[in-house]
């Protein structure tokens, strides 16, 4: 990180014009792009591939067992922990299923062509094993804090698994996670939620609500955003105050509802174009591996290469399912079980549901409607998806598609903010102890209000960098303790696994 900061700074200063973004903004733009760049993607893909090979393609062979765990057949109500396997999965999924599933897919397809969606799914499959390994380790090395709550995740397996010599890696991870929880997990989500609501419903409300004014002297906002900020802060506050038990219960209802709602909308569009599905899928596969493609967007035809498809697919897959970042293991560590591998197996369903199922649904809608070819601005991913849903439905019913995406965005943003508070909560406990939890939650809720009203700019970019940095510390732990993961896996499957319920 030091290197790319030092390497990017002089060029950032050069490229900043007086009218354009400031040098600092350009610097943080570059830093965030580099942090989420090729080395980062290859590193996460490499870890996924390593565990896939070492565990003999367990994501395919053990899928049935993982689903049985999710259905509660292996629940141990009296085991140490705070939530069931399913609630832990939902808490982790509510953090990962978000804007990446709506806007991220569209961006990948716009920049990389329909083939990027196939690469996204493939990287999702690799991510399943990364998540398996990190969640297995989180369970193995979890502890209970002085207030009786579970604390587990990379900070625990780095310090307890690798030994005291590496405790500084654990602290680095925890610091990065706390900062990231205020950025991508909190303010960005509140802002997206307020933006989606204002864009979709603002025009039908009294203009006095959407009229801009300055708050605290410099914060440009409007009454609607203030109300939305307060509502989301209160809603999230009510949930997170109850800790992981309440988060698990709420996520256990919210995640299936929002997944069914969004996937249902996507399936409706897909069924309306069912005749074209085989051809579209064929095109997606051929563009992923076969050859280059031309997008006839406004402003001239643009050639897209296979390499672009791979790069963009990988980028958006990592952004969407967070496999390797080390965030989901914090939620999974709270599961009631004696078997670390069992939680690892259900955790690996996360990237499958997020990237292979939900992202592919979005991709199919975008490709079936042909919006990817004609849409002019690839940076407006969510708008592109909204347009695809609108055009995919018969004339006169387009508004249903538009509202599906808008409501999906709002629900995904709120659920992500809920789960990320728990990640920050556990990491701040690791650094300062349980006394820091309540002040953290209060600040977290205040930041949600702020996020709904301001454009964080540099602060968000900085949080993006720390978000990516979490993976660097986590991966040291994953590879350093890979023999532990493999030994636990072999031991678990050497014993007969009969359903407990």
């Amino acid at each position, binding site marked *: 990180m030091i290197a790319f900061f030092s390497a990017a700074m002089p060029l950032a200063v050069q490229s900043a014009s007086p009218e354009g973004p400031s040098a600092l903004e350009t610097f943080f733009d570059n830093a965030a792009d580099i942090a989420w760049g090729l080395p980062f993607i290859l590193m996460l893909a490499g870890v996924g591939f390593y565990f896939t090979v070492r565990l003999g393609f367990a994501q395919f062979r053990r899928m049935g067992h993982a689903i049985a765990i999710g259905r509660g057949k292996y629940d141990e109500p009296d085991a140490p922990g705070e939530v069931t396997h399913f609630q832990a999965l939902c808490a982790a999924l509510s953090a990962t299923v978000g804007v990446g599933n709506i806007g991220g897919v569209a961006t990948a397809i716009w920049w990389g062509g329909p083939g990027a969606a196939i690469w996204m799914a493939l990287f999702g499959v690799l991510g399943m094993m990364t998540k398996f390994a990190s969640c297995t380790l989180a369970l193995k090395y979890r502890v209970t804090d002085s207030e009786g709550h579970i604390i587990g995740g990379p900070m625990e397996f780095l310090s307890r698994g690798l030994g005291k*010599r590496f405790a500084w890696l654990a602290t680095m991870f925890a610091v990065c996670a706390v900062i990231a929880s205020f950025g991508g997990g909190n303010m960005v989500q509140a802002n997206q939620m307020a933006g989606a609501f204002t864009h979709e419903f603002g025009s039908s409300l009294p203009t006095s609500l959407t009229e801009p004014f300055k708050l605290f002297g410099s914060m440009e906002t409007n009454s609607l955003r203030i109300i939305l900020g307060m509502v989301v802060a209160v809603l999230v506050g009510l949930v997170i105050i109850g800790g992981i038990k309440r988060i698990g219960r709420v996520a256990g209802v919210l995640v299936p509802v929002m997944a069914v709602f969004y996937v249902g909308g996507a399936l409706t569009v897909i069924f309306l174009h069912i005749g074209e599905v085989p051809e579209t899928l064929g095109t997606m596969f051929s563009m992923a591996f076969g050859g280059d493609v031309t997008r006839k967007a406004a402003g001239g035809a643009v050639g897209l290469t296979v390499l672009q498809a791979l790069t963009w697919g990988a980028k958006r897959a990592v952004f969407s399912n967070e496999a390797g970042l080390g965030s989901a293991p914090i939620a999974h560590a709270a599961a009631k079980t004696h078997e670390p591998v069992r939680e690892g197996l259900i955790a690996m369903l996360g990237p499958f549901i997020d990237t292979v199922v939900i992202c592919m649904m979005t991709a199919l809608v975008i490709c079936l409607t042909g919006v990817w070819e004609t849409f002019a601005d690839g940076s407006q991913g969510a708008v592109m998806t909204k347009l695809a849903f609108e055009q995919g439905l018969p004339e006169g019913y387009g508004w249903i598609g538009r509202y599906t995406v808008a409501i999906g965005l709002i629900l995904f943003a709120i659920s992500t903010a809920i789960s990320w508070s728990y990640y920050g909560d556990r990491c701040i406990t690791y650094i300062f102890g349980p006394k820091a939890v309540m002040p953290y939650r209060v600040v977290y809720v205040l930041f949600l209000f702020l996020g709904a009203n301001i454009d964080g700019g540099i602060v968000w970019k900085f949080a993006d960098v720390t978000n990516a940095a979490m993976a660097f510390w986590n991966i040291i732990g994953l590879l350093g303790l890979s023999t532990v993961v493999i*030994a636990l896996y072999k031991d678990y499957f050497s014993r007969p696994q009969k359903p407990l319920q």
Partner: protein
Amino acid sequence: MTKFSILAFLGALVGGLLIWKVLPSAAIWIDGPWLIWAIVGLVLLLTAGLLIPRPTTDSWKRSWGLLWLAAICLMGSYSSLYVLHNRVNALGAQVREVLKTEAALAKAKAEERVADIESIAQDLTAKKLEVTSTYEAVVFDERELNRIEASSLELTYLEYIVSVLFVFTFFILAWMTAPTAQKFYGFNEAPAT
């Protein structure tokens, strides 16, 4: 730990060879400090490879430190290439735009649209000035555009090579933290696995 040493050597040699092989032929636009970062990173990786097989706590500390430095240098090289790539792509877009405007001007002249000729010519001069204020040596023709596009492709390859090298270095660094590796180097307080 010999396997890590072999991995470090192989990685550095193959990476170095690939960079040399891809090293710009048509790419007049590839400059900047990326190559220095990459060379220093490769040298550090090779040096770490020499120290890795010695089973002493000191050699662990030195090789682990060197691997961190090598990873930082390789990330520095990638950062430099990334920023450069953005610049080359932006230049390509600007040159493409100039060529498009030149074609529009030629068409307007052929069709004798006097009013259009003047405005398009002004637009063309402004666009050319914008490019040459940063890159004096740019020639506005198809050949130059092809060279810029070739540079962009070469930059993509270089980004991939440097990134793979970074990942390689980082993985060795991570594997060296394993409790079994700690025991090999004589750290008595290494946790049990």
